[in-house]
């Protein structure tokens, strides 16, 4: 009896300072399988293609519906969310690797701290707390809200960082996703009160001007966030602000 199987080639790494190696697996096929369910199959029965018992492959995933951004990995060389990547849509053997733009912790788990540091740098939040009740904030116009909603879908998954040619060990580029978040918080009526501070943050070394317009970010973004449009609009905003800063402020 020949049962249908899924052939996977997984790039593994035992720890942050260990050397990576490739281990192959063959897991039983089931209908509607995604990368996560194949990895769960390996965890259930951690035996590699040579029949040797091995340690289960480690990965991160939370929501399983493409809203948390935790299961980012390279699948057949492309940066994708493992949960929304269906096995039947892929050519076999399926290669699964950790993202390369972030330091690997173990197997498919990477440390995306760089992205969170970038969000801190650009003040990716809305300041609502004072020492007293400040009352309700201003209302947002519906057309603004619709645009802001698209930007708010960002889940900090890091695929745009992975695809960007200007993000690597040599560069200090803040990255596409945090830039789109600047636009999100600068669109918000309360967030607008810190708009210039955010612009100031992205006008330095490794800021907005490190974008080289390769536009890979918008190609790989699983949430279809208008990243290149956001960057272009911020180019306009920062240019206007730079004149204001030089002549008026």
């Amino acid at each position: 009896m020949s049962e249908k199987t899924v052939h996977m080639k997984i790039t593994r790494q035992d720890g942050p300072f260990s050397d990576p190696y490739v281990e192959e697996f063959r897991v039983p096929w089931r209908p509607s399988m995604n990368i996560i369910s194949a990895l769960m199959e390996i965890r259930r029965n951690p035996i590699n293609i040579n029949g040797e018992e091995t340690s289960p492959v480690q990965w991160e995933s939370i929501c399983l519906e493409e809203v948390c951004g935790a299961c980012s990995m390279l699948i057949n060389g492309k940066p994708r969310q493992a949960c929304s990547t269906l096995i039947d849509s892929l050519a076999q053997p399926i290669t699964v690797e950790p993202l390369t733009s972030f330091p690997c912790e173990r197997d498919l788990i990477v440390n995306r701290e760089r992205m969170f540091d970038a969000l801190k740098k650009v003040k990716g939040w809305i300041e609502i707390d004072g020492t007293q009740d400040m009352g309700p904030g201003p209302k947002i116009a519906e057309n603004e809200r619709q645009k802001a909603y698209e930007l708010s879908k960002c889940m900090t998954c890091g695929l745009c960082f992975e695809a960007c040619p200007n993000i690597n060990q040599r560069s200090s580029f803040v990255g596409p996703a945090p830039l789109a978040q600047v636009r999100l918080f600068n669109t918000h009526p309360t967030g607008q009160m810190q708009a210039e501070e955010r612009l100031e943050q992205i006008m330095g070394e490794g800021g907005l001007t490190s974008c080289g317009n390769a536009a890979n970010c918008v190609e790989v973004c699983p949430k279809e966030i208008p990243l290149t449009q956001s960057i272009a609009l911020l180019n306009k905003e920062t240019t206007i602000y730079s004149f204001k800063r030089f002549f008026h402020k």
Partner: protein
Amino acid sequence: MNNDRTFFWRKLHSISGLIPIGVFLFVHFGINYTAFYGEEAFNNAAAFMGNLPFRYAMELFIIFIPLLFHGIYGIVIARDAKNNLTTYRYEKNLYFYFQRLSGIVVFLFLIWHVGTTRVPAAFGAEVNFDMVANLVENPLYLIFYIVGILMTTFHFSNGFRTMLITWGITANQKSQQFGKMLGILLFLVLSGIGLTAIFAFV
């Protein structure tokens, strides 16, 4: 308070590609094109340029300093990139890669170009039709010119497209598509002028 001048230098790099370098490129190509009307027309045009008032100041501030700044800072910027065209075969990623490649090729071409025209001129050689005609007699040098011209027109046209983005003029998809069409048009027109001119010397 604010000592980080990155924004200023990057914007200056962007605009310097159009003003003055792009403007100079148009003037230079226009003068070259007169070779199409014959040797005398070109020699008259070259003599007119050579006899412009404040020539050395203009050469320095409109041509040499901006070119050196744009070229050297451009190489610094290109060093930020880790090209990934094999994994991400997207149109704009190709332009991104080619913009950096063409920039370096043009930089090398210009060193040769200045070395074979302005440097001899500084030692007393006359800048005229024969100077270029003697150069392109050598097929290798003719190839240098063809490659140099095409790389220059690509770099300028694509740079014009990205400049519209860098200054926030074309933001949405539709206008960026329009910017791309403008770039293609510029590339075709400038390449046509440049190649017509160089073949007039052959």
